């Protein structure tokens, strides 16, 4: 069974601070996705990383896929209250048509 561990589980920071959240596994994934979920809503896809070492930027968010494709990180620069939410990583396995495996998420709270 492929597992994704996310850390930290909870994070509360002041507006303007930088932060990094992590998604780690002992398994290799063909790709990793990051989602953001707000209360009462379903997850919304932010980015998909496919190549080991890949870095993608989405405004103030920077996503990185580890060289060995076992881990990923999400860095937010100058966090804003609108960034508050649950950040989930999800992996796709190497073996064909397997379903997405989600981590438990990092719950981020940005205080104005």
């Amino acid at each position, binding site marked *: 069974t492929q597992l994704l561990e996310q850390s930290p589980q909870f994070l509360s920071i002041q507006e303007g601070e930088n932060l990094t959240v992590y998604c780690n596994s002992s398994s290799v994934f063909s*790709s990793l996705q990051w989602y953001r979920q707000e209360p009462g*809503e379903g997850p919304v896809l932010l980015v998909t990383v496919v190549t080991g070492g890949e870095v993608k930027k989405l405004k103030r968010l920077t996503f990185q896929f580890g060289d060995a494709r076992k881990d990923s990180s999400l860095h937010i620069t100058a966090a804003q209250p609108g960034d508050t939410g649950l950040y989930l990583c999800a992996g796709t396995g190497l073996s064909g048509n397997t*379903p997405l495996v989600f981590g438990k998420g990092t719950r981020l709270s940005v205080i104005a």
Partner: protein
Amino acid sequence: GAGVSQSPRYKVAKRGQDVALRCDPISGHVSLFWYQQALGQGPEFLTYFQNEAQLDKSGLPSDRFFAERPEGSVSTLKIQRTQQEDSAVYLCASSQQTSASTDTQYFGPGTRLTVL
């Protein structure tokens, strides 16, 4: 355009009751997924349809859970004889293509089921 919709948004059931949760995917999307998200957890895969065919039901926790998509569009997740451990948010997602994992999945808002 319309996204994935789910109904009801909230459902309270007494233990032992049967419930039916509905998912309306994005029109034309081939694949449809059901997930269960317990409080404080990430979504966990339940089952996957490609059109009307249920290709993977490995995540269904027991034989009390049953899903169907008879015409390849709307799907219903049925839970028989609900138990307290069934309390969770049930998420539906659809994707345009046929891959179980690599295509972008669009999620509905979920149905929050509370079993008393």
